[in-house]
């Protein structure tokens, strides 16, 4: 499935209106805002369709995944928006992650737990806002124009004494070269979950953390809470490859795709947007006109052209003023 899908769910008591942009959307927030009500309305409609009295307006079928027979139900569901309630015991299992990867559905999951098995974006975590009978989704985490989340947004940030990136391949090579030439130490956490561990072990350091927002959803809550009680800044652009594509260095990088990824990234082919942007960058830099910027999919190294100061500056300027 691709694209942005508007959903309206209504009955005599409540109206929910929201838009879904990526394959995985997480809904959490305060109690009493209507999460269970929305799930139950979808659930009633799944069982009884229009005879439920629940009215759903959406260009895709909306279904609720029930607890007992979820694997079978999922196996028979395609091109749909699937809603999963927080009471589902299978939510944190690898089984669920492997079952939904490669499907052409979008998923809306009501849950406050961090779902470490799923690569969901920090941009697609919402709470429900209520005004009378009307309910809508509101993003939980905001960022400034430099993709800095939480404390420190839109304010002058002092020079860090270290940079941490979750990337251990090309991104790390790039950031290490850029920052260490400016006398700032650069470290890799070796993955998203490693960010938290590294931060715990380096309390007190003034650290600028760079991670892929496209798949950092399960980590943002605890890392932001740690960062808010220490001197750390959390910067979450879509991905390192997205920064390169956005920098203007790569000929043929489509503005349409970068401005509206949802319309081009099929959930069946790419579990998260970062994977798409990696593939897209590899394809573009295979072309002769982009030969100096050849991007290696194995991520073992990075082309020299990226490290030249003027080019590196174009990439870095997207996240650092």
């Amino acid at each position: 499935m691709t694209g942005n899908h508007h959903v309206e769910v209504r009955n005599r008591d409540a109206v929910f209106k929201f838009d879904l942009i990526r394959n995985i959307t997480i809904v959490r927030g305060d109690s009493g805002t209507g999460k269970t009500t929305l799930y139950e309305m979808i659930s009633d409609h799944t069982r009884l369709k229009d005879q439920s009295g629940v009215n759903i307006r959406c260009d895709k079928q909306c279904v609720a995944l029930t607890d007992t027979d979820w694997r079978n139900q999922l196996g028979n569901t395609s091109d749909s928006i699937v809603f999963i309630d927080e009471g589902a015991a299978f939510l944190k299992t690898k089984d669920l992650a492997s079952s939904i990867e490669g499907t052409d559905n979008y998923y809306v999951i009501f849950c406050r737990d961090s779902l470490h098995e799923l690569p969901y974006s920090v941009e697609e975590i919402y709470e429900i806002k209520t005004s009378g009978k009307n309910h809508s989704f509101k993003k939980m985490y905001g960022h400034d124009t430099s993709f800095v989340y939480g404390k420190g947004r839109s304010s002058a940030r002092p020079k860090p004494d270290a940079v941490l990136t979750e990337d251990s391949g090309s991104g790390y090579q790039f950031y290490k070269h850029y920052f260490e030439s400016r006398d700032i130490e650069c470290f890799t956490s070796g993955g998203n979950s490693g960010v938290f561990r590294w931060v715990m072990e380096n309390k007190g350091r003034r650290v600028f953390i760079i991670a892929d927002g496209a798949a950092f959803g399960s980590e943002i809550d605890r890392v932001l809470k740690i960062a808010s009680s220490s001197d750390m800044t959390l910067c979450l652009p879509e991905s390192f490859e997205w920064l390169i594509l956005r920098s203007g260095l790569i000929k043929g990088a489509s503005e349409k795709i970068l401005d509206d990824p949802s319309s081009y990234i099929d959930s069946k082919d790419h579990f998260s947007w970062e994977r798409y942007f990696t593939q897209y960058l590899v394809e573009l830099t295979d072309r002769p006109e982009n030969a100096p910027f050849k991007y290696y999919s194995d991520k073992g190294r990075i082309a020299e052209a990226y490290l030249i100061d003027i080019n590196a500056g174009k990439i870095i300027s997207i996240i650092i003023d």
Partner: protein
Amino acid sequence: MLHIFFGDMGDRPDAIFNTSVYFNNTYKDGWITKPLSKEIIKAVDKSEVIDERTIMSPVFGNMSPKKLSGGVKTLLLIDNDSSKIFNASTCGDNCAEWILRIAENKAAQKKKVVINLRHLMDFGKGEFRIYIENTNRIVKNMDELVWEAAEFV
């Protein structure tokens, strides 16, 4: 004092994950009309208790206690059933003050409250005393709680 076990509790028979279903099948009418329950229902769900079987909701009108929010159901379970450890990650941050208050009330009766959290609930800017079951340490504010418990969620 409030005791919290962070993270997955595995197959422990006293751990209740789906608190909504458990509440619907076990709650007692008398729980609903207790003064503290009325306060909780008013504060979190913006609803008034009419009697033990009827609650007036601004959204649903007259409704059964089974239509209360997942957070309120969990709070009522924590307050009234000490035989289980309930998954309080079914509660939003707007339930945190009530969890602390329930624990205070129980402490006055020489009882402890144990809950399970799978996320870092925000207990606010004030001071408190919470016993972290995973590490057997007491934390006194959110900063301490976050550093002590974040690795388990």
